[in-house]
């Protein structure tokens, strides 16, 4: 087990450096004028150029630049936005909002997604199953920004059930519609995954054995089938959590939520290079950590993995 953990840790470290290197390389080295890329579309004068060059060590070889960047990242020096604001401050403000949104979203996904999926899987081919399959397919096929804008139009503007934008004065309720939009895709996937997993496990040989022991159907499903079926679902949810923390960029953008995703969205709109790159790097870290935790959980849940 510990060998497994160490191996995964090393892999994660390697992936972290590899991924951040690529992002960094993309951002700064593909463009012919990295200074201009940093500043977006605003033209720069000579002194601005000099300052940026010094700040970002652009006169040094690429790997050295990367080295500075990574060291800064790892020591907590996240640099400043184009406007000069410390990125740490921006994030300290934004992250709690994203966390709140994420938690509500996960609650929706788990409650509706898993229970729905279990029912659909148990009654495979039934009306409930077919309906959920159709609906989830539509959800998966519709791009998030379409869902978001359409929901915003229908439920906030036309029907007035929700506020169309972030309204901190109504507290946590302001996250409800965005959470629904954000959660819809994960919910649909979770539901389908649960359904397939349950349906497959229902036909497994060990179910026949459990029946042969004279156990009630409730116990066979509740103890044996679920225990096996939920493993892939839980690992999927873990990964989703990592992605959600990262950024619901589009959703936060549509609903004007000043979370991490929202700031990223703004950063892209305002062409704030340093902010964008730093946030993306941090999101990679979050993603890797969640994946690592998910893999560890998988090993705990499925004893077969432990002994590889």
């Amino acid at each position: 087990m510990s060998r497994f953990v160490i191996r995964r840790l090393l892999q994660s470290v390697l992936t972290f450096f590899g991924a951040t290197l690529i992002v960094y390389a993309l951002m700064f080295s593909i463009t012919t004028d990295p200074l201009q890329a940093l500043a977006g579309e605003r033209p720069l004068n000579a002194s601005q150029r000099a300052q940026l060059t010094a700040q970002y060590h652009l006169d040094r070889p690429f790997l050295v630049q990367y080295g500075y960047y990574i060291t800064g990242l790892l020591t907590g020096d996240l640099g400043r936005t184009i406007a000069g604001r410390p990125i740490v401050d921006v994030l300290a403000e934004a992250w709690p909002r994203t966390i709140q949104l994420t938690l509500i979203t996960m609650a929706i996904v788990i409650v509706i997604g898993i229970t729905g999926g279990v029912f659909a899987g148990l009654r495979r081919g039934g009306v409930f199953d077919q309906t959920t399959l159709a609906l989830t397919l539509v959800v998966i096929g519709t791009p998030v920004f379409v869902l978001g804008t359409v929901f915003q139009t229908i439920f906030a503007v036309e029907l007035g059930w929700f506020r169309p934008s972030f309204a901190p004065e109504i507290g946590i309720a302001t996250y409800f519609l965005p959470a629904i939009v954000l959660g819809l895709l994960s919910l649909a996937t979770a539901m389908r995954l649960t359904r397939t997993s349950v349906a497959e496990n229902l036909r497994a040989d060990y179910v026949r054995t459990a029946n042969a022991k004279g156990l009630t159907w409730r116990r066979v499903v509740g103890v044996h089938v679920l225990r096996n079926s939920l493993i892939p679902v839980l690992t999927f949810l873990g990964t989703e959590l990592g992605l959600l923390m990262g950024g619901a960029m589009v959703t936060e953008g549509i609903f004007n939520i000043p979370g991490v995703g929202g700031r990223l969205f703004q950063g892209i709109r305002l062409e704030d290079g340093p902010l964008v790159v730093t946030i993306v790097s941090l999101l990679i870290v979050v993603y890797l950590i969640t994946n690592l935790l998910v893999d560890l959980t998988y090993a705990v849940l499925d004893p077969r993995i432990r002994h590889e």
Partner: protein
Amino acid sequence: MSSGAVPTQADEAVAERARSLSGDAWHDLRRSAVFWTATALVVLMSLIAAFPGLFSAIDARTAACSLTDSLRAPDANHWFGFDKQGCDVYSRVIYGARSSVLVGIFSTLITGVVALFVGMLAGFYGRWIDTILARVTDIFLGIPPLLGAVVVAKALSGQELGIWPVVLALGLLGWPSPARVIRSSVIAARHQDYVNAARILGASNGRLMFRHILPNALAPMVVVLTIMLGTFIAFEATLSFLGVGPRNTISWGVDIAEAQRWIRDASLPLMFPAGFLTATVLAFIMLGDAIREAFDPRLR
């Protein structure tokens, strides 16, 4: 003792109309309404993308938009009404199909080629080649896809490169998933006896890979790539929505982004491009799903 030959095994096998997995799959597909609907939609959208002039009298690329028509309701000549700029929504939707479909096709091609290459090498040769490629795959998978695409597209957006920054971004970041799928199929196929038999007969590695293993790894790959086509179209629209999509091209994403700002005044300029986009994405995803269900022996 009666005479009469006992039927041989060969006769009985022929008489049984033995069906292969592909035969069974095609039999199911033919009867699937989902398959035909999806295929029809795909064909329709491809035609719209290729020959927009057939579907719209107005050429959206050159049409003159008058602000006096801003957000006007639909009429006989302008079925979908007008957007904020006073442009005809219908023709913009028709002409917008091209960038979406083209991006989808090209990025899927790139992804497919890279994934095939990586997946086959990793699956076939195994050991240290596999380990290295697996680590590379991990690295690319570590980049959150939308964010990575945004960064690439943004990095390249300074120059006037049309749809290519987006295509490149999607191709660069999309290959890990299909590569993994192909790798598993190749590994599964590699251990089959028919591969060993061919190897003993002297087939070279290349021949083994392409003549023997590839056909069997094809089905899952087709499913994954079809679905990816759909998601890439969605991605392109999202990138356009975020402002980093292809420039100076008519695009559903851009139109939706623009229309979103004025939804309080008019919802049609949002709904129509959104509808077409969703229909196209869904068509590809449903198609891939239908093929997958047909080929899945476990669902019999």
